[in-house]
Protein backbone atom coordinates (compact mmCIF):
# COMPACT_ATOMS: atom_id res chain seq x y z
CA UNK A 1 0.00 0.00 0.00
CA UNK A 2 1.23 3.49 -0.83
CA UNK A 3 1.37 5.84 2.16
CA UNK A 4 0.07 9.39 1.94
CA UNK A 5 2.78 12.03 2.48
CA UNK A 6 1.78 15.32 4.14
CA UNK A 7 5.16 16.92 3.57
CA UNK A 8 4.98 17.63 -0.15
CA UNK A 9 6.01 21.23 -0.76
CA UNK A 10 4.30 23.52 -3.21
CA UNK A 11 5.71 24.66 -6.52
CA UNK A 12 6.73 28.28 -6.65
CA UNK A 13 5.95 30.50 -9.60
CA UNK A 14 8.64 30.04 -12.21
CA UNK A 15 10.25 27.12 -10.42
CA UNK A 16 11.73 24.39 -12.60
CA UNK A 17 10.29 20.94 -12.42
CA UNK A 18 11.29 19.40 -9.11
CA UNK A 19 11.29 15.59 -9.21
CA UNK A 20 10.62 15.37 -5.47
CA UNK A 21 7.47 17.43 -5.82
CA UNK A 22 6.32 15.66 -8.98
CA UNK A 23 6.93 12.25 -7.46
CA UNK A 24 5.23 13.31 -4.24
CA UNK A 25 2.16 14.29 -6.22
CA UNK A 26 2.24 10.98 -8.06
CA UNK A 27 2.73 9.08 -4.80
CA UNK A 28 -0.19 10.80 -3.12
CA UNK A 29 -2.45 10.12 -6.08
CA UNK A 30 -1.51 6.46 -5.79
CA UNK A 31 -2.14 6.51 -2.04
CA UNK A 32 -5.63 7.94 -2.61
CA UNK A 33 -6.33 5.32 -5.23
CA UNK A 34 -5.20 2.37 -3.14
CA UNK A 35 -7.06 3.59 -0.03
CA UNK A 36 -5.64 3.02 3.44
CA UNK A 37 -7.83 0.49 5.22
CA UNK A 38 -7.41 -2.31 7.71
CA UNK A 39 -9.67 -5.19 8.54
CA UNK A 40 -9.91 -7.99 11.04
CA UNK A 41 -12.13 -10.67 9.59
CA UNK A 42 -12.46 -13.97 11.37
CA UNK A 43 -11.98 -17.01 9.13
CA UNK A 44 -10.86 -19.62 11.66
CA UNK A 45 -12.59 -22.61 13.20
CA UNK A 46 -16.02 -22.22 14.76
CA UNK A 47 -15.68 -20.84 18.26
CA UNK A 48 -17.86 -17.96 19.31
CA UNK A 49 -17.27 -14.84 21.33
CA UNK A 50 -19.82 -14.18 24.04
CA UNK A 51 -20.69 -11.87 26.89
CA UNK A 52 -22.82 -11.99 30.00
CA UNK A 53 -21.97 -8.43 30.97
CA UNK A 54 -24.72 -5.91 31.70
CA UNK A 55 -22.39 -2.94 31.29
CA UNK A 56 -20.50 -1.98 28.16
CA UNK A 57 -17.97 -4.64 27.44
CA UNK A 58 -16.43 -6.69 24.68
CA UNK A 59 -17.59 -10.16 23.68
CA UNK A 60 -14.66 -12.43 24.38
CA UNK A 61 -13.78 -16.01 23.65
CA UNK A 62 -11.20 -18.25 22.09
CA UNK A 63 -11.23 -16.81 18.55
CA UNK A 64 -8.40 -14.49 17.64
CA UNK A 65 -8.43 -11.52 17.74
CA UNK A 66 -9.95 -11.45 21.17
CA UNK A 67 -11.80 -9.14 21.41
CA UNK A 68 -12.61 -8.25 17.80
CA UNK A 69 -10.72 -5.02 17.09
CA UNK A 70 -8.85 -3.30 14.27
CA UNK A 71 -5.81 -1.02 14.28
CA UNK A 72 -5.06 1.60 11.64
CA UNK A 73 -2.51 4.37 11.21
CA UNK A 74 -3.63 7.72 9.85
CA UNK A 75 -1.64 10.70 8.64
CA UNK A 76 -4.38 12.91 10.06
CA UNK A 77 -7.60 12.08 8.25
CA UNK A 78 -11.11 11.01 9.31
CA UNK A 79 -11.59 7.31 9.95
CA UNK A 80 -14.75 5.35 9.20
CA UNK A 81 -15.21 2.15 11.18
CA UNK A 82 -17.65 -0.55 10.09
CA UNK A 83 -18.61 -3.72 11.95
CA UNK A 84 -20.67 -6.63 10.68
CA UNK A 85 -21.48 -9.69 12.74
CA UNK A 86 -24.22 -12.18 13.48
CA UNK A 87 -25.36 -12.30 17.10
CA UNK A 88 -27.54 -14.74 18.96
CA UNK A 89 -29.10 -14.33 22.39
CA UNK A 90 -29.89 -17.02 24.90
CA UNK A 91 -33.51 -15.82 24.92
CA UNK A 92 -35.61 -12.93 23.68
CA UNK A 93 -34.47 -9.63 25.10
CA UNK A 94 -32.45 -6.48 24.65
CA UNK A 95 -28.78 -6.04 23.91
CA UNK A 96 -26.67 -2.95 23.24
CA UNK A 97 -23.89 -2.43 20.72
CA UNK A 98 -21.30 0.22 19.96
CA UNK A 99 -17.91 0.88 18.45
CA UNK A 100 -15.31 2.54 20.61
CA UNK A 101 -11.86 3.91 20.04
CA UNK A 102 -9.28 2.66 22.51
CA UNK A 103 -9.45 4.62 25.76
CA UNK A 104 -12.80 6.14 24.82
CA UNK A 105 -15.28 6.39 27.63
CA UNK A 106 -18.68 4.83 27.14
CA UNK A 107 -21.29 7.46 26.39
CA UNK A 108 -24.76 6.16 27.15
CA UNK A 109 -26.31 9.00 25.12
CA UNK A 110 -24.54 7.97 21.93
CA UNK A 111 -27.17 6.83 19.41
CA UNK A 112 -24.93 3.86 18.67
CA UNK A 113 -25.85 2.58 22.09
CA UNK A 114 -29.54 2.33 21.42
CA UNK A 115 -30.82 -1.14 22.19
CA UNK A 116 -31.58 -3.89 19.74
CA UNK A 117 -34.35 -6.29 20.56
CA UNK A 118 -33.81 -9.95 19.78
CA UNK A 119 -37.29 -11.24 19.01
CA UNK A 120 -36.28 -14.84 19.37
CA UNK A 121 -33.04 -15.15 21.18
CA UNK A 122 -31.91 -18.49 19.91
CA UNK A 123 -31.96 -17.36 16.28
CA UNK A 124 -29.27 -15.41 14.48
CA UNK A 125 -29.56 -11.68 13.81
CA UNK A 126 -27.12 -9.71 11.69
CA UNK A 127 -25.87 -6.53 13.32
CA UNK A 128 -24.16 -3.58 11.64
CA UNK A 129 -22.39 -0.69 13.24
CA UNK A 130 -20.80 2.23 11.41
CA UNK A 131 -19.21 5.21 13.02
CA UNK A 132 -17.22 8.17 11.74
CA UNK A 133 -14.33 9.40 13.82
CA UNK A 134 -13.91 12.82 12.17
CA UNK A 135 -11.03 14.49 13.99
CA UNK A 136 -8.12 12.12 14.15
CA UNK A 137 -4.63 13.58 14.49
CA UNK A 138 -1.83 11.61 12.86
CA UNK A 139 -1.26 8.43 14.81
CA UNK A 140 -2.22 4.80 15.27
CA UNK A 141 -5.63 3.92 16.64
CA UNK A 142 -7.44 0.77 17.72
CA UNK A 143 -11.22 0.39 17.43
CA UNK A 144 -13.24 -2.33 19.12
CA UNK A 145 -16.80 -3.64 18.84
CA UNK A 146 -18.69 -3.70 22.14
CA UNK A 147 -21.86 -5.57 23.05
CA UNK A 148 -23.65 -6.09 26.31
CA UNK A 149 -26.97 -7.39 27.51
CA UNK A 150 -29.73 -5.48 29.15
CA UNK A 151 -32.79 -7.56 29.92
CA UNK A 152 -34.14 -10.95 28.97
CA UNK A 153 -30.86 -12.25 27.62
CA UNK A 154 -28.33 -13.92 29.88
CA UNK A 155 -25.68 -14.74 27.29
CA UNK A 156 -25.11 -12.95 23.99
CA UNK A 157 -22.95 -14.71 21.42
CA UNK A 158 -21.13 -13.36 18.39
CA UNK A 159 -21.11 -16.23 15.91
CA UNK A 160 -17.72 -16.77 14.32
CA UNK A 161 -18.99 -18.95 11.48
CA UNK A 162 -20.46 -15.88 9.77
CA UNK A 163 -16.98 -14.36 9.53
CA UNK A 164 -17.61 -11.17 11.50
CA UNK A 165 -15.36 -8.28 10.64
CA UNK A 166 -14.35 -4.87 11.87
CA UNK A 167 -13.09 -2.54 9.18
CA UNK A 168 -11.39 0.85 9.41
CA UNK A 169 -11.08 3.11 6.35
CA UNK A 170 -8.95 6.24 6.44
CA UNK A 171 -9.87 9.36 4.48
CA UNK A 172 -12.93 11.09 3.18
Amino acid at each position, binding site marked *: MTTWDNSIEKYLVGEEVNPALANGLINNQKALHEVNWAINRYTGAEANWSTTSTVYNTPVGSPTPNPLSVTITTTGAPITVIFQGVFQGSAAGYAFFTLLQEDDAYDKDDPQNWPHYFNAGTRPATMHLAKLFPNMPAGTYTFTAYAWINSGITTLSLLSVYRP*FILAIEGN
Partner: protein
Amino acid sequence: MTWTQHSTQNDNSVLTAAILNQMNDNVVHLKSAFQFYGYTETAPITTTATSFTSMGANYETTLTPTPGATYLCMLMGAGRVSGDGNIMRFDLEIAGSIQGDPTRGIAAFAGVSNAGTLTTNPYRMINVWWIVNGLAQVSTTFKWMWMVSAGTGTFAGTSWGRPVIREL
Protein backbone atom coordinates in the same frame (compact mmCIF):
# COMPACT_ATOMS: atom_id res chain seq x y z
CA MET B 1 -11.68 7.37 -16.73
CA THR B 2 -9.10 4.61 -16.38
CA TRP B 3 -6.50 4.72 -13.63
CA THR B 4 -2.92 4.83 -14.95
CA GLN B 5 0.11 4.49 -12.75
CA HIS B 6 2.75 7.14 -13.53
CA SER B 7 6.41 6.51 -14.02
CA THR B 8 8.87 8.03 -11.54
CA GLN B 9 10.17 11.49 -12.43
CA ASN B 10 13.90 12.09 -12.21
CA ASP B 11 16.24 15.08 -12.42
CA ASN B 12 16.05 16.55 -15.89
CA SER B 13 12.81 14.71 -16.62
CA VAL B 14 10.49 16.75 -18.75
CA LEU B 15 6.93 17.05 -17.52
CA THR B 16 5.03 16.56 -20.74
CA ALA B 17 1.44 17.33 -21.56
CA ALA B 18 0.82 13.57 -21.67
CA ILE B 19 2.05 13.11 -18.08
CA LEU B 20 0.10 16.09 -16.76
CA ASN B 21 -3.04 15.01 -18.59
CA GLN B 22 -2.63 11.50 -17.22
CA MET B 23 -2.36 12.91 -13.70
CA ASN B 24 -5.54 14.88 -14.29
CA ASP B 25 -7.27 11.77 -15.62
CA ASN B 26 -6.29 9.97 -12.44
CA VAL B 27 -7.89 12.70 -10.33
CA VAL B 28 -11.05 12.31 -12.40
CA HIS B 29 -10.87 8.55 -11.84
CA LEU B 30 -10.59 9.06 -8.08
CA LYS B 31 -13.68 11.25 -8.18
CA SER B 32 -15.80 9.02 -10.39
CA ALA B 33 -14.49 5.51 -9.75
CA PHE B 34 -16.60 2.55 -10.77
CA GLN B 35 -19.96 2.18 -9.13
CA PHE B 36 -22.59 -0.43 -9.89
CA TYR B 37 -26.16 -0.01 -8.82
CA GLY B 38 -28.38 -2.97 -9.64
CA TYR B 39 -32.15 -3.15 -9.49
CA THR B 40 -34.65 -2.77 -12.24
CA GLU B 41 -37.29 -4.91 -10.58
CA THR B 42 -40.92 -4.04 -10.16
CA ALA B 43 -41.72 -6.62 -7.51
CA PRO B 44 -39.95 -8.37 -4.66
CA ILE B 45 -38.04 -11.53 -5.54
CA THR B 46 -38.34 -14.83 -3.68
CA THR B 47 -36.33 -17.98 -3.15
CA THR B 48 -36.88 -21.45 -1.74
CA ALA B 49 -33.31 -22.57 -2.53
CA THR B 50 -31.65 -24.36 0.38
CA SER B 51 -28.14 -23.84 -0.98
CA PHE B 52 -26.59 -20.60 -2.12
CA THR B 53 -27.87 -19.43 -5.49
CA SER B 54 -27.65 -16.14 -7.37
CA MET B 55 -30.26 -13.51 -6.56
CA GLY B 56 -30.52 -12.92 -10.30
CA ALA B 57 -29.10 -10.72 -13.02
CA ASN B 58 -30.08 -7.51 -11.22
CA TYR B 59 -27.78 -8.50 -8.40
CA GLU B 60 -24.77 -9.36 -10.54
CA THR B 61 -22.19 -7.27 -12.29
CA THR B 62 -18.99 -7.94 -14.20
CA LEU B 63 -16.01 -5.61 -14.23
CA THR B 64 -12.28 -5.66 -14.78
CA PRO B 65 -10.73 -4.50 -11.51
CA THR B 66 -8.37 -1.54 -11.53
CA PRO B 67 -4.83 -2.32 -10.32
CA GLY B 68 -4.54 -1.57 -6.62
CA ALA B 69 -8.23 -0.81 -6.18
CA THR B 70 -10.47 -1.74 -3.25
CA TYR B 71 -14.14 -2.55 -3.74
CA LEU B 72 -16.85 -1.99 -1.16
CA CYS B 73 -19.85 -4.26 -1.74
CA MET B 74 -23.22 -3.59 -0.17
CA LEU B 75 -26.63 -5.20 -0.41
CA MET B 76 -29.38 -3.06 1.05
CA GLY B 77 -33.08 -3.65 1.14
CA ALA B 78 -35.86 -5.25 3.10
CA GLY B 79 -36.67 -8.91 3.47
CA ARG B 80 -38.44 -11.64 5.33
CA VAL B 81 -38.59 -15.40 5.49
CA SER B 82 -41.72 -17.42 6.07
CA GLY B 83 -41.93 -19.74 9.01
CA ASP B 84 -41.04 -18.95 12.58
CA GLY B 85 -37.35 -19.71 13.01
CA ASN B 86 -36.51 -20.29 9.36
CA ILE B 87 -33.34 -18.48 8.40
CA MET B 88 -32.53 -16.49 5.28
CA ARG B 89 -28.81 -16.24 4.49
CA PHE B 90 -26.77 -13.99 2.19
CA ASP B 91 -23.32 -14.19 0.70
CA LEU B 92 -21.23 -12.70 -2.10
CA GLU B 93 -19.54 -14.67 -4.87
CA ILE B 94 -16.56 -13.05 -6.55
CA ALA B 95 -15.02 -14.72 -9.60
CA GLY B 96 -16.74 -17.99 -8.74
CA SER B 97 -15.51 -17.99 -5.14
CA ILE B 98 -18.04 -17.60 -2.35
CA GLN B 99 -16.72 -15.25 0.31
CA GLY B 100 -18.36 -16.63 3.45
CA ASP B 101 -19.04 -20.02 4.93
CA PRO B 102 -20.42 -22.18 2.05
CA THR B 103 -23.49 -23.24 4.01
CA ARG B 104 -24.12 -20.22 6.22
CA GLY B 105 -22.83 -17.17 4.37
CA ILE B 106 -21.91 -13.82 5.85
CA ALA B 107 -25.31 -12.61 7.09
CA ALA B 108 -28.40 -14.30 8.48
CA PHE B 109 -31.93 -13.20 9.31
CA ALA B 110 -34.50 -15.35 11.07
CA GLY B 111 -38.23 -15.41 10.48
CA VAL B 112 -40.28 -14.42 13.51
CA SER B 113 -43.90 -14.67 14.47
CA ASN B 114 -44.58 -11.46 16.27
CA ALA B 115 -47.17 -11.16 18.91
CA GLY B 116 -48.50 -7.73 19.77
CA THR B 117 -49.13 -5.07 17.19
CA LEU B 118 -46.73 -6.22 14.49
CA THR B 119 -47.85 -8.50 11.72
CA THR B 120 -46.54 -12.02 11.52
CA ASN B 121 -43.37 -12.35 9.54
CA PRO B 122 -42.75 -8.62 9.00
CA TYR B 123 -40.29 -7.10 6.56
CA ARG B 124 -37.07 -6.03 8.18
CA MET B 125 -34.10 -4.00 7.01
CA ILE B 126 -31.36 -6.11 5.49
CA ASN B 127 -27.81 -4.87 5.00
CA VAL B 128 -24.85 -6.98 4.00
CA TRP B 129 -21.38 -5.50 3.55
CA TRP B 130 -18.11 -6.84 2.19
CA ILE B 131 -14.77 -5.37 1.15
CA VAL B 132 -12.19 -6.85 -1.19
CA ASN B 133 -8.98 -5.86 -2.89
CA GLY B 134 -6.06 -7.51 -4.68
CA LEU B 135 -8.28 -8.76 -7.49
CA ALA B 136 -6.66 -9.82 -10.76
CA GLN B 137 -7.12 -7.48 -13.72
CA VAL B 138 -9.39 -9.87 -15.58
CA SER B 139 -13.11 -9.85 -16.19
CA THR B 140 -14.60 -10.54 -12.74
CA THR B 141 -18.21 -11.21 -11.84
CA PHE B 142 -19.71 -10.19 -8.50
CA LYS B 143 -22.88 -12.10 -7.58
CA TRP B 144 -25.05 -11.59 -4.53
CA MET B 145 -26.22 -15.02 -3.37
CA TRP B 146 -28.98 -16.15 -1.03
CA MET B 147 -30.70 -19.20 0.40
CA VAL B 148 -33.12 -20.24 3.12
CA SER B 149 -32.94 -23.00 5.69
CA ALA B 150 -36.60 -23.72 4.86
CA GLY B 151 -39.68 -21.77 3.79
CA THR B 152 -39.72 -18.88 1.33
CA GLY B 153 -37.34 -15.94 1.49
CA THR B 154 -38.36 -12.58 0.05
CA PHE B 155 -36.11 -9.64 -0.77
CA ALA B 156 -37.52 -6.28 -1.78
CA GLY B 157 -34.92 -4.19 -3.46
CA THR B 158 -37.56 -2.46 -5.52
CA SER B 159 -38.19 0.69 -3.63
CA TRP B 160 -36.18 0.29 -0.50
CA GLY B 161 -32.74 -0.78 -1.52
CA ARG B 162 -30.33 -2.02 -4.11
CA PRO B 163 -27.01 -3.77 -4.47
CA VAL B 164 -23.88 -1.64 -4.75
CA ILE B 165 -20.37 -2.49 -5.84
CA ARG B 166 -18.12 0.53 -5.75
CA GLU B 167 -14.46 1.24 -6.02
CA LEU B 168 -13.23 3.19 -3.04
